[in-house]
C-alpha cells in the first residue's frame, strides 16, 4: 500500500520531471527542486491552515478567559479539559489544525527519500525495484540510469566538501541553518510566561534543525536539497503574508518584543 500510494507515484513523478528537463547532468537536482515546489503548492492550503491554527492557539494563550480557567481549574484536570473544549468550540478553533500539516509532511519526507534512492539505484537490486516501480506508460529506458550529479554533489550519497583535509558537510549545515531560520521566523511572540505552546515551539526550533541536519549528514544529499528548498519556500511563503518575525533571528529578539509589549 505504501509502495502504491507513495513510492510509485513519487518516483514516477520525479522520473517524468527529470525526463521533461532533458535528463542531462544536474537535471535530477532540478527535478527534486521542481518536485519540492510542487509539493509546497499542493500543501499550500494545509500550510495556511497550520499558520492560522498556530496563530489562533497563540492568541488563545494570551486571552484572559483562557488564562483564568488555567488558574481556576489548575488542580482539576478533567474540568480544565472540559472548559478548554468549550472555548475551542465557541471560538471555532481546531487544536490539531497546527499539527496536521506537520504530520502530512512526514510521509512525504520518507517517501521522497525512498523515491530518490530508488530512482538513483545505487545497487542492482535497487535498479530491479525501480524497474517494477515505473508505470507502464512511462518510457524510461532511455533515461535510466539517472545522472546523479548536481552541482558538486552526488545526490545518491551524503554530501561533504573537502576543506584543508576535513570533510565539511555543507548541506547538513545549510539544512540545520535554514530549518532554524524558518522555525524562528514563524515563531510568534508570546506575552504569557506560562505559554506552553510557545515553549514547545521554542524547543522545536532547537531540535528540528538538529534532527534534519542529522538526516542531511547521513543520507542521500537529494533529501538535503529537498529540505533546503522546502525551508526557503516556507520562509518566502511566510514572509509574503507579512507575519515573519524577523527580530526573532537576533539574540534575545523575542524577549525584547515580549518586554516591549508588556510596557
Amino acid at each position, binding site marked *: 500500500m505504501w509502495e502504491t500510494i507513495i513510492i510509485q507515484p513519487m518516483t514516477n513523478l520525479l522520473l517524468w520531471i527529470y525526463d521533461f528537463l532533458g535528463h542531462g547532468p544536474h537535471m535530477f537536482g532540478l527535478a527534486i527542486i521542481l518536485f519540492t515546489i510542487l509539493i509546497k503548492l499542493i500543501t499550500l492550503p494545509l500550510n495556511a491552515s497550520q499558520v492560522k491554527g498556530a496563530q489562533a492557539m497563540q492568541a488563545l494563550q494570551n486571552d484572559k478567559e483562557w488564562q483564568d480557567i488555567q488558574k481556576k481549574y489548575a488542580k482539576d484536570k478533567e474540568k480544565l479539559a472540559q472548559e478548554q473544549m468549550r472555548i475551542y468550540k465557541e471560538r471555532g478553533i481546531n487544536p490539531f489544525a497546527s499539527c496536521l500539516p506537520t504530520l502530512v509532511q*512526514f510521509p512525504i*519526507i*520518507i517517501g521522497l*527519500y*525512498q523515491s530518490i*534512492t530508488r530512482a538513483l539505484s*545505487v*545497487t*542492482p*537490486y*535497487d*535498479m*530491479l525495484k525501480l*524497474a517494477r516501480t515505473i508505470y507502464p506508460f512511462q518510457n524510461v*529506458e*532511455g533515461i*535510466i*540510469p539517472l545522472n546523479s550529479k548536481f552541482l558538486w554533489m552526488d545526490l545518491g550519497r551524503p554530501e561533504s566538501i573537502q576543506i584543508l583535509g576535513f570533510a565539511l558537510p555543507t548541506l547538513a549545515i545549510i539544512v540545520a541553518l535554514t530549518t532554524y531560520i524558518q522555525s524562528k521566523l514563524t515563531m510568534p511572540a508570546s506575552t504569557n510566561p506560562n505559554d*506552553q505552546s510557545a*515553549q*514547545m515551539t521554542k*524547543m*522545536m526550533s532547537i*531540535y*528540528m534543525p538538529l*534532527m534534519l541536519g*542529522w*538526516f542531511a549528514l*547521513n*543520507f542521500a544529499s537529494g533529501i538535503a536539497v529537498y529540505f533546503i528548498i522546502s525551508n526557503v519556500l516556507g520562509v518566502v511563503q511566510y514572509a509574503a503574508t507579512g507575519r515573519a518575525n524577523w527580530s526573532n533571528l537576533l539574540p534575545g529578539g523575542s524577549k525584547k518584543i515580549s518586554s516591549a509589549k508588556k510596557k
Partner: protein
Amino acid sequence: MNTKRLKLFVLLALGATFLSACSGQPLANNWPGLATDSEHAYLAAGSFVYAVDLESGEEVWRYPAEANGKLLFYANPVLTSDGQLLIGSTGKEHPFISLDPATGKEKWTKHFTENKGGWVGSPLVLNDTIYAPNADGFIYVINLNGKEDADPIELGGALWSAPSTDGSLLYVTSLDHYFHVIDPATGVMNESIDLGGAAPSSPVVGSDGVYVGSFASTIEYIKTNGGHKVIAKTDSWIWGSPLLDGQTLYYADLSGKVYSLDLASGNQNWDIVQPDGPVVASLLIVGDQIYVATEAGTLVALDREGKTVWEKTVGGKIYTTPVISGDLILVAPYQADFVLADYDAAGKQAWTFVPEK
C-alpha cells in the same frame, strides 16, 4: 531537562529512527556473487566471502573472520590461474582484495579512495593483467601482485559487469547505454556503440561478433569486422547475459520469457516459454539442459525444445547466475532460509548452506 522537553526529544528521536528504518541501507541491499572450482564454492554475500566444501556443503573458511562494517560484497569472485581469488568490495573504502582460495587468507589488498565507486562487476584476467570494472566508470588495470600497471581506462557510465574478451580485445558494457571495444595493449577505446538502454551484464563473444542484451529490450549483434544491428527484441528489459550455444542464442527478460534464437535464420526456435517469474540471472547450459533461475525462487531445467524437464522450488529470489562444478549446479538464492544449495542434473538437492552467526 524537564519532562516536556524530554518527551519532545524522545518523539523526535523516534521520528529519526523511524525514518532511518524506512529508508534502509541501500548499499547493503543486493544479491550474492558466486564462483566455484573443483573443491569449493565461493560465495560473496553481504559482509563475507565464504568458501563452502562442495561435497559436504560445510563452511571451509570465511573472509573476514569477523564482520567488518567497511566490507560489503556482491560481485562474483574470480579465480585466477596462479591461485588467487579476486573480489572487490562495495563497502566504505572499496578495497580490491586477493585471497588464497585454499585458506581465505589475504594475499594483497589494493585500497581505492572514498571518491571511487564500488565493485559490482567482476574483474577479467587476461595475460596476467586484471581488468577490474568499477561503478565509477573506470576499468582499473592491476597486475597479479596488486599494483596498478597502467592508467585506468575511463568509460563514463557505471560498470556493473565483467569485461569479455576474444583473447585480444576487451568488450565492455556500461550502464550509460554504451558498448565499448578496448585494445588492452594500449588502453585505447576502438569503438563505442549506443545500445539504447543500460547494459548491466557482460557481452557474449561469438566467432565473428559479440552479442549484448540491454534495457532497450533488444539483443544487439556487433560484428568483429565492423557494423552492428538489433537481431532480436524482447517483451521487457534484458538483465542477464545471452548464452551462445553453437548457432543458437538463449536469453531471457524481466517479463520472465525465455527465448531461443536461431542465429542462422533469425527465427525463434520456440513460441512462448515462460517459467514462474522474471529472469535476472544469466542462463546456464549443461549437456542438453538449459537452466533458468527465476525471481520466484525456482530453478527450471529446459530441454533444447523449451520443454520443462524438471523444476525445483529453491526458495527466496534467485538473481545470481547459477554455476556448474562437475555434475553439480550451485544456486545462491537471495532472501531465502539458506544462502547456497546444490542440485544434480536430475534436480535432486544434495545440501544447503547456512552460515553460522
